[in-house]
């Protein structure tokens, strides 16, 4: 069953340690599971996306958009930011290493468009730098909340 919430669930985790990109992506997606936005299978689905299609989810310098298809476990629209203690390499030719991960999930292919569009606008407007400058986990969450529209 899918449910549409009025506003996306937002989560933030800071100083996360990860041995490699798989662990980083899994932990970023795990935060969505913890807030109830995604099912338990979602983190592994996010890892498989990269295994299958390559590290293209590293969409700009140092930042990966961790996501999988809605039917892989999206329960609500959710956006999480994970800041790594130490950056990891995804194997991207230009955008490695990655220190910021935005994890994203949605229950159906249409529910998320407004949220992601807002996120894209914010990223173009320097969101990544504001996230990197955040003082702690609460600050990270606050910065992300500002960047994601209520929809």
């Amino acid at each position: 069953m899918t449910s549409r919430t009025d506003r996306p669930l937002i989560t933030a985790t800071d100083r996360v340690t990860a041995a490699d990109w798989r662990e980083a992506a899994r932990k970023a997606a795990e935060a969505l599971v913890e807030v109830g936005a995604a099912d338990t299978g979602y983190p592994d689905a996010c890892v498989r996306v990269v295994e299958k299609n390559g590290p293209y989810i590293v969409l700009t310098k140092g930042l990966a958009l961790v996501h999988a298809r809605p039917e892989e476990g999206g329960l609500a629209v959710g956006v999480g930011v994970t800041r790594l203690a130490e950056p990891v390499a995804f194997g991207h030719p230009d955008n490695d290493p990655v220190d910021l991960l935005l994890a994203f999930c949605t229950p159906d292919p249409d529910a998320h468009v407004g949220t992601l569009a807002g996120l894209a606008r914010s990223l173009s407007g320097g969101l990544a730098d504001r996230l990197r400058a955040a003082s702690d986990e609460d600050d990270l969450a606050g910065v992300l909340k500002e960047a994601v529209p209520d929809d």
Partner: protein
Amino acid sequence: MTDITEERGTDMALDRQLEVLAVCGVGMGTSLMLKMTAEDALRSLGVEARVENTDLSTARGMSPDVVIGQGMHTGEIADLAPVVITISDFLDKDGLEAQLRERLTAQGWLS
């Protein structure tokens, strides 16, 4: 109605909306980001365009004027459109705009 496919690859100016496809592996997250960057770049260039986003396998059944994707997917999108553009930074509007200007001008679609 004229058959628009006859104009493919010729030097004629487009008298219709440019069809642009932003492609990524899953077809919803990353390609949506790319779509928005492309829309901004095309707007700056003053090009009337419709930009859609999709995944690699769906893209194979489509025939846009321009396809934009990741360099690492070049092999899979190379023969999809007369103009194939690859970028590594999906948020780099200026870089995409420069590539679009050059390639669309070369096609005679932008003067």
